[in-house]
C-alpha cells in the first residue's frame, strides 16, 4: 500500500497542501530503467491531457491523447504510455541519469526518483515566480545483485508482479479525484500545463533524484528541470 501524507511544499507559499505518494521497489540493476519508466509513464498517462486550443470567448477544445503498449525486456511486465515521443525522451533522459548515478561511486544501490507536479504562481518584480507543488510521487529504489541466472529469472517475474501492484496503487490514488488545478484561461495555461510538447499536454512537472550512499545520507541531490521555463530571476 502507498504511504500517503500531505506535506507543506518545500520553500514555497504554504497555502496549498501537496499530497505525496511513495512507492518502493527492489530491482536488479538492469531493471531500473524499465521499472522507473513504467511507473512514471503510468502517472503521466493520468496527468496528461490533449493539447488545448483556445478559441474566442474563452472556450477551448482538447486534442486527443493516443496510447501505446510498452513491453519490458528485463521484466515480465508491460505498461501503457502516452503516445508522445517527446515525453518519452524526456523521461528516458531523466531515468538514464538516475540509473547512472545509482551505478556510480558512492552509491549503495539505494536512491529515489521523484516526480513532482506543480503550479506556477507569477509574482511581481522583483520576486521570482513561485512553484507550488500539488502532487509528489517518490519511487524508492533498492538495487539488488543476483548471483545466477535462476535468480534472475525469478527476479524478472517477481518484479513484474510488484510493478502490477504499483500500477494498481497508482490508479487507486488517481481515482480519489483529489485536488487538481483548475482549468486555466489562455493566459494562465503555462502556469498549469507544460505546453511545450507538440502532441500532448502534461501538467507542469519536474523530475529529481537522490542517491543514498552507504552511510545512509544523501550525497547527491540533482534537480533537473524538464520544462522550458527554467530560469527564474
Amino acid at each position, binding site marked *: 500500500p502507498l504511504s500517503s501524507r500531505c506535506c507543506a511544499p518545500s520553500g514555497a507559499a504554504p497555502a496549498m497542501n501537496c499530497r505525496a505518494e511513495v512507492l518502493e521497489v527492489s530491482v536488479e540493476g538492469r531493471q531500473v530503467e524499465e521499472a522507473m519508466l513504467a511507473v512514471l509513464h*503510468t502517472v503521466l*498517462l*493520468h496527468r496528461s*491531457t*490533449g*493539447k488545448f*486550443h*483556445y*478559441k474566442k*470567448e*474563452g*472556450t*477551448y*477544445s*482538447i*486534442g*486527443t*491523447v*493516443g*496510447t*501505446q*503498449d*510498452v*513491453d519490458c525486456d528485463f521484466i*515480465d511486465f*508491460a*505498461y*501503457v504510455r*502516452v*503516445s*508522445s*515521443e517527446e515525453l*518519452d525522451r524526456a523521461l528516458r533522459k531523466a531515468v538514464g541519469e538516475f540509473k547512472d548515478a545509482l551505478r556510480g561511486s558512492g552509491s549503495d544501490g539505494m536512491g529515489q526518483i521523484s516526480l513532482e507536479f506543480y503550479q506556477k504562481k507569477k509574482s511581481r518584480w522583483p520576486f521570482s515566480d513561485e512553484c507550488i507543488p500539488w502532487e509528489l510521487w517518490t519511487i524508492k529504489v533498492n538495487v539488488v545483485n543476483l548471483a545466477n541466472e535462476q535468480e534472475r529469472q525469478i527476479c524478472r517475474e517477481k518484479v513484474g508482479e510488484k*510493478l*502490477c501492484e504499483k*500500477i*494498481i496503487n*497508482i*490508479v*487507486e490514488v*488517481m*481515482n480519489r*479525484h483529489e485536488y487538481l488545478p*483548475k*482549468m*486555466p*484561461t*489562455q493566459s494562465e495555461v503555462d502556469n498549469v500545463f507544460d505546453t511545450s510538447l*507538440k*502532441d*500532448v499536454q502534461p501538467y507542469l512537472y519536474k523530475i529529481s533524484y537522490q542517491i543514498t550512499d552507504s552511510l545512509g545520507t544523501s550525497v547527491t541531490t540533482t534537480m533537473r528541470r524538464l520544462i522550458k521555463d527554467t530560469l527564474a530571476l
Partner: protein
Amino acid sequence: AMDTDLSSQDRKDLDKFIKFFALKTVQVIVQARLGEKICTRSSSSPTGSDWFNLAIKDIPEVTHEAKKALAGQLPAVGRSMCVEISLKTSEGDSMELEIWCLEMNEKCDKEIKVSYTVYNRLSLLLKSLLAITRVTPAYRLSRKQGHEYVILYRIYFGEVQLSGLGEGFQTVRVGTVGTPVGTITLSCAYRINLAFMSTRQFERTPPIMGIIIDHFVDRPYPSSSPMHPCNYRAGEDNGAVYPSVEDSQEVCTTSFSTSPPSQCVFTVTKAHFQTPPPVVTDTLKVPVVGLAFSHQLSSSRLSYQPAALGVGSADMGYPVLFAGGLNAAHPHQLIGPGKEGGVPPAPSQPAHGTQADQERMCTPLDGVHYSAATPSSSEDTETVSNSSEGKCGSPHDLLETIFIRKVGAFVNKPINQVTMANLDIPFAMFAPKNVELEDNDPMVNPPESPETESPLQGSLHSEGSSGSSTGNTHDDFVMIDFKPAFSKDDILPMDLGTFYREFQNPPQLSSLSIDIGAQSMAEDLDSLPEKLAVHEKNVKEFDAFVETLQ
C-alpha cells in the same frame, strides 16, 4: 425527484457520456485481450470524434456486440454491463478468467458538473482502465494465445455473475465517477486459481526447430487465434488425442508459434463428415459443416464432443480475434480492426469552460477524422506497426490475406486454393486434402515460397520468390509469412527470413561423409594415446581452471 436538479440538456449529455463510456470500456478491454500491443496516435488537433479525448479505436464487431447486449439501456442499479473474458483450449475446455463490471450505484453527486467534471473523470477512468487491463493475469495469458488456447469475450447486461471464476478470485477496482444520477464504478474480478492452465506449463516445452519466437514480434493482424492452426492431422478420431511433443515435431507446421504446438491438435469426429474432417476451433454459434461445439465451462479435461446445433448464443463466447471476413454469413464473427463499417457520426463534444463554474459549448470541428484503421486496398503494403516509435499503420483488410495469414507455414495447401468460395465454411481451409505426413514433413522437405504474393508478404518477398531451398521442393507447401525472431517488418525487408530460407538446407559437410569421415576418425583414434599423455601431465592446470569456474 432525482432528476429535478439536472437540466434536460445535462441529462441528455450525461446519458450520452455514459453510453459512449460503456462502449469505449468494452473496446479497451477486448483490445487488451487481443494478444498484441495496441498503439494509437496522439493528435494535437481535436478531431471531434475521439470520445473522452482519448484515441481508442472502435472495432466494429465489438461495438456491435456491446450495443446488442445493452439493447438501448444504460448501466443502472442492478443492471450492470459485464465483459467476461475466458480462455478456451484447443481441446474445448473453457475457463472464465475475468469479469469486468461497469456498475451504477445510487450514490449521487448532485453538485458535480456534468459536461465538465464528469466528462474529464470518465476520461481519467478510461486511462486507468488502459493501465489496469495490462496488470491482471489474463493479460499475459492473452499475449501468449494462439495455439493451445484462445481468449474469448462475452458481453452481458444485467446481474453480475462471478461464480465461474473459481474460488478465491480477486477484485481490483479501476475507479469510480460520481454523477448526479448515481456513481459509476468500474472493477474487475479475476480468477487466481489457474490450476490446469499455467503459462509456465507452456513455456517449458522446447520450441520447434530451435527457433525461439519472440512473442512480442509485430504482426500485421491481431493474433488470429481461432484460425491459427499449429498443426493438424488427418484421419484422427475424437479429439482427445494429444500428440507427444515428438509427434508434433514430426509434422512441424508453424514453428513460428508463440507457444509450443504440443497440444494443439484440433480434430473433429470423423463420422460427421463426408470429407476429411476440417480442423476447427470454433466457439461461434455457426453451423460448421454440421458440427457444433459443446460449450463446456468446467475445468475438467473433456474429450471433444460434438453437440447438437443451436447452442444458445448467450452462452457462447466470441473470439476476441477475428476469424475472417465472413460477416454476412456469420454475424458473430469478428472481422478485425481493419474493416470499418463506415465512419461513425461525430459525437458532440462536451463544453469546456475556462471558468469551472460556467459551461460553454464547444462545437465539434468539421470533418470527422477517424483515427482508426481504414480499409486498405490490395496495393497497400503497410503493416500494422506497434513499434515504440509510435507509428501506427492500418491493418490489412483483405479477406484473402486474412485466410492466408491464418494458414500456418508449411501447411500443405497452396495459397491459390484458398479462395473466397472456400470461405463459406469457417476454417475450411484447414481441411487437409490428401495429406501424407511423411512426404509433407517440412523438416525433410522444406517448403517453397508461395507462388503468389500477398501484400502481407511484400516485405518478405521483396526480391521475388527467392527463398526456395535446396532439396526436394514441394508444390504443396507454401511458406507464408515467415517471421524470424526479433525481426521487424518495418525495419528490414525480412532479410533474415530470406537468408534463413536460403540456407536452411545446406549441403552436407564433407567431413560428415562416410569416406572422409572414416579416414579422419582413424587418424583421430591413432593420435589419442599421445593426447591423453599430454593432458595427464597438465592435470593440475585443468583442475585449477575448473576451480575458478565453481
